[in-house]
């Protein structure tokens, strides 16, 4: 049959967000794939050059709306590195706890979208329902559901609400029970396994060379987790295990993310128990010194980086944002070629696309 370019256009239920995948199809098998991004490009780096350091905080939230707290925290770390500020102990533990809750909420959002793509409406509904618990926790801590604006340069916005620790420990117990139930729901169904095992295999060398980071990289067998290998905040004091899986197919990415949710529950417990009393914020100066600042954080989707160049005024001279999804999508062709049209959904769903950060 003649080769045919299919345009899985900007508006397509499979694309969670706005990007376009042009695949060349010979019958049902894919012979060529060309992702196209840029539909959500808001020119954030240009906007940031005309705003003061504190005005950029809400913008950093809206980079990736799936895990906005981790991008807010990444921006604060970058500017703290530029200004050379040391964040107090309590703020570090508070940030770690909030980041891990955001990771669980982000992974549950991914699980909901992934199940809906494969046609499993029940997976979408259960994951959405359980995500609401963590959204409520973060709402009690920060005040809003999606874009939190919780971190400040030099610490955290405000202290913990009363009995926040009790609620979050209860939520973690509930989550661990639920994930056992998800294992039966997902791996129990033969159809789910048929759609996932051996689909979209990414070998270890390809993953490393193509710049894939985060869960898809660890699913290909590379044991690299920024929280462990280049620790920041109070992660060195917390013991947890980075999750890897040797296969590198869609099932491996699913397993890595499910196990990471369990790890996050453990981290939240340790962080909340070890959180010392005391100040939760240090006042930062208005103008940043001349120099550069680098922030490198393990975002639920991969390695988020920011590089800021200060020029002595209260506005950054240049703020460069490295988005994990922007680079992982460029590796889409290697994962897609040779599989069926129906597998595009499973493979692209496995990458947990968040176009907000990819297009900046």
């Amino acid at each position, binding site marked *: 049959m003649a080769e045919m370019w299919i345009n899985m256009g900007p508006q397509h239920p499979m694309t969670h967000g706005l990007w376009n995948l042009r695949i060349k199809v010979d019958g049902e098998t894919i012979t060529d794939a060309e992702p196209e991004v840029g539909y959500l490009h808001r020119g954030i780096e240009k906007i940031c050059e005309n705003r003061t350091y504190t005005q950029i905080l809400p913008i950093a939230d809206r980079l990736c709306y799936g895990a906005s707290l981790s991008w807010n925290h990444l921006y604060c770390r970058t500017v703290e590195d530029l200004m050379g500020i040391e964040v107090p102990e309590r703020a570090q533990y508070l940030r770690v706890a909030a980041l891990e809750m955001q990771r669980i909420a982000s992974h549950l959002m991914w699980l909901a979208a992934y199940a809906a793509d494969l*046609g499993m409406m029940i997976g979408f509904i259960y994951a959405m329902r359980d995500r609401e618990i963590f959204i409520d926790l973060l709402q009690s801590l920060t005040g809003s559901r999606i874009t939190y604006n919780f971190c400040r340069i030099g610490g955290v916005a405000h202290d913990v609400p009363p009995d926040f620790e009790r609620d979050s420990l209860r939520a973690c117990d509930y989550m661990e029970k639920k994930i056992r139930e998800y294992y039966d729901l997902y791996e129990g169904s033969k159809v789910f396994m048929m759609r996932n095992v051996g689909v979209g295999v990414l070998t270890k060398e390809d993953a490393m060379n193509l710049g894939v980071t985060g869960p898809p990289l660890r699913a290909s067998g590379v044991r690299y987790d920024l929280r462990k290998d280049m620790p920041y905040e109070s992660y060195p004091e917390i013991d947890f295990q980075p999750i890897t899986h040797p296969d590198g197919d869609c099932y491996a990415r699913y397993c890595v993310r499910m196990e990471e949710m369990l790890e996050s529950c453990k981290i939240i417990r340790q962080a909340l128990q070890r959180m010392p009393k005391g100040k939760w914020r240090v006042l930062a100066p208005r103008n940043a010194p001349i120099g550069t600042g680098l922030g490198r954080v393990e975002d639920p989707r991969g390695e988020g980086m920011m590089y800021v160049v200060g020029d002595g005024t209260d506005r950054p001279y240049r703020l460069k944002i490295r988005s994990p999804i922007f680079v992982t999508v460029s590796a889409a062709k290697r994962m897609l070629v040779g599989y*069926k049209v129906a597998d595009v959904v499973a493979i692209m769903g496995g990458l947990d696309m968040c176009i907000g950060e990819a297009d900046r």
Partner: protein
Amino acid sequence: MNLYEFSYGIIHWLVDLVNHLWYWLGSWLPGGLGDFFDDVGNFAASHSNISVFAIVLEAIIMFVIILVNVLNFIWIDRKFMGRMFDFYGPYYVGYRIGGWLQNLADGMKLFVKEIIVPAKADRFGYLLAPVIFVGSSIAILAAIPLSPKFAILTSPTDTGVPAGVLFAFAMFAIAPFSILVAGWASNNKYTLIGGMRSAAQMMSYEIPLLLCVASVVVLAGGFSFFEVVEAQRTVWFAIPLVIGFVVFIICMFAEVEVQPFDLPEAEAELVEGWTTEYSGMRFGLFMMTSYLRGYCAGALITALFLGGWIGPSFIPGPIWFLIKAYIVFVIVEWARWSLPRVRIDQLLNIGWKRLMPLAIVNLMIAVALKSLGWF
């Protein structure tokens, strides 16, 4: 007093009423014209004419009852999905009757939508496809009797459509042709792939399906629904032909395009599959007909395997038939909402490698049972 006599009586009463007026009118007119009026009156009251209209009335009654059931199916489907998914389902539309009017609102809204025919679409095929799809699906209802007395009969002593089972499955098999035409005619890549997939899916599931039907007919000894159900008087065919029962249900999933085999309208990959370009009432027809085929699947399963209207006598026959059809439909919905979608090549593998041998084994069992004389 079966449905035929009932509708015959109504038509007869109606014709008499009109004839009185007609003859009175005829008597006023001068000679030639008056005779013409008398001849028309006599012809109207003749047996052949009344029986034709009786059958038409039968079809209307049957169709209306089934449509009400299909609307009920849609409501049950959304309410049951709600219960499975922790939310209410339709609630505020038709508040006091639990949201039952939601389907009516969905259907009627589509009446007032603008009718769009895509510019480069092949008009003839685009307009023909819904007609065939809906027509063939509704034709199946004519063949499926709810009970000996409640079926489309052509004479008081008639036993339904002579080869009812064959006719039902023939009508069932026309739909993929119309899906292919719809997919091709709406000039859109997604619908083309959706149409191809549905043709491949139907082909690979038609044969195991008909093998199971063959095994039932071998045991029952006749092609008409009445003989099949009467033969199940002692034991339902689901008991001896368990393999056939399971294979039949799986094939019905594929024929009616329910979730595990939902390929032609795969939500996530092909936008809406072959109904992408249809809007307004044509899309309404497609949606309503897919539930109608859901009912037909349920009805065929109950008629062939679960002993259609056979049940303890305190509930009349048709009600038994409908109860079983509802139960089968709920089970189909249960699987529909909890299983992900199968890929097209896995689907074909299941069809050819798994279901085909099972269906043949089931046919052998049926022949063995028949030759042993137990049935």
